[in-house]
């Protein structure tokens, strides 16, 4: 029997691992409803808060864009970072490690599948909120917007792949840490408000989270008042996101190799009781 090796196996693994995430959307329709409903409800809450504060209409747009991006962050945290922990719990992790393919390909497959599933939810939330709350988009360059979004996703899912390896070294903490990384990151990355208010030093620190820069750059391109509340120029943010992407992917690769070594040496990493 002829078997694939090298880059063919790598690509087939990516397709195989992303397949259940894409097809799963069709088989679990209630999941889609809830995953659209929950971010929509929380985004609506922030929109009404801005209305209660009599904020300019652009801020309602900021809240909507932030709410849309929560779909990706939730996916990265629960379906990337904590995924290896779930796989260990269900007994699949040992199979991944024993199989002749690369764990990097498995994680990339999760990322592509997750990105697709999250994109469906994000677009739906965006359309719903834009229609209901009359968001005043003033996109200056669609090309730049798509480019920045794509770059943000690369860096974000690179971070998810890194977390997936790191989280695996923990046990029950993985669940708690995933939960802990939601609201604090919404706050630190400025999902619902411009992070300019943090001051430069703090803003530099929180820029290590890819969505901080991605959101700030997208606001600048998407809203007329975006530049007035910007953190850095769009060009600087694109450069920083590119550096983050490369660094996070390299770190993810390093940790995956290390994790596989631990799995082989100690023989306990895949033990679901730990």
């Amino acid at each position, binding site marked *: 029997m002829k078997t694939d090796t090298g880059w063919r196996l790598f690509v087939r693994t990516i397709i195989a691992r992303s397949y259940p995430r894409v097809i799963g959307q069709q088989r679990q329709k209630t*999941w889609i409803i809830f995953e659209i*409903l*929950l971010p929509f409800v929380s985004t609506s809450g*922030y929109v009404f*808060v801005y209305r*209660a504060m009599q*904020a300019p209409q652009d801020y309602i747009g900021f809240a909507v864009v932030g709410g849309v991006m929560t779909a990706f962050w939730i996916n990265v945290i629960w379906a990337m970072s904590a995924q290896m922990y779930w796989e260990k719990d269900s007994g699949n992790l040992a199979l991944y490690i024993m199989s002749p393919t690369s764990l990097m390909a498995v994680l990339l497959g999760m990322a592509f599948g997750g990105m697709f599933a999250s994109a469906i939810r994000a677009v739906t939330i965006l359309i719903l909120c834009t229609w209901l709350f009359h968001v005043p988009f003033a996109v200056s360059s669609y090309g730049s917007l798509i480019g920045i979004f794509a770059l943000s996703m690369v860096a974000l899912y690179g971070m998810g792949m890194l977390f997936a390896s790191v989280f695996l070294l923990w046990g029950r903490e993985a669940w*708690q840490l995933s939960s802990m990384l939601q609201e604090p990151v*919404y706050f630190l990355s400025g999902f619902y408000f*411009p992070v300019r208010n943090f001051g430069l030093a703090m803003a530099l620190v929180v820029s290590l989270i890819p969505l901080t820069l991605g959101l700030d750059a997208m606001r600048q391109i998407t809203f007329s008042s975006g530049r007035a509340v910007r953190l850095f120029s769009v060009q600087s943010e694109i450069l920083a996101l590119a550096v983050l992407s490369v660094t996070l992917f390299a770190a993810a690769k390093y940790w995956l190799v290390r994790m596989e070594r631990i799995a082989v040496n100690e023989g306990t990493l895949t033990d679901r009781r730990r």
Partner: protein
Amino acid sequence: MFNTFRRSFFPAARLGWSVESNWADPFVFFTFSLLKPIAGVLILVFMYQAVSPVGIGSPTYAYIYLGNAFYIYVGAVMAGASYSVLDDRERYRVLKYLYIAPISIPVYLFGRAAARFVTGTAAVVITVAAGIVLFQLPISISSVNWAMLIASLALGVVCLASLGIILGSWTLIIRSQPWFIGEAAAGALYLFSGAIFPITLLPPVLQPIGFVLPMTYWLELTRRALLGNGATAFPVMAAFDNRQLFTILGALTLGLSVLAFLAFGYFDRLAREKGMIDVQSDF
């Protein structure tokens, strides 16, 4: 009956506390318990500071801050009871053993909710204290109406626990993705109960939902107890005096307690018939 309560409530509360807290050392657990709710409040504080022309001295600010702070209890107590069923059935796979133990399952769920109430209380106290010390929340400890605060809290917790038991019972018969129930209910209540904005901002067709939710009256009472006259930022509830608010909240709590009892009986029977007590959905 008392023995069954004692056997069910106290071990459940202790178990709940252990499940919540023993995954980390006390410092990490304490930090974890606070980070999430405080981050939620900080989002609102920075949103307010980013746009408000009147500054944080405005009563609107206190209204939003306190609503969000006390809403921590909703996620902790109400959604917590639903998560308990999920945890016990699917994660730790012990629900079937609990069912054959000589305990009352609704009282057990109430005990698990009580454990979450304790962790929630720590988060609420620190969030409000941080508001007073760091974010100029206009609360004077000497002018707080403590009797009103404690009474409204007690009613609110019973009400939330009853809602939690209803959701937990419902969770019993759901096979796939049951963890959404608690989150969806907490999210919906957040939107409709006027926790962070007055319900009059909602579309007119949705506003009546806010007026039938106990959280709306509970949050108003806690705000009045803490802020006194400063609780008039949004006069949605101005037509109601404190006695009327307590009466409505009390009636809704009683109704929900009865409903929780009935709901558990119904869903429990259904779950046994469908073999859902030990089902695993690989959530």
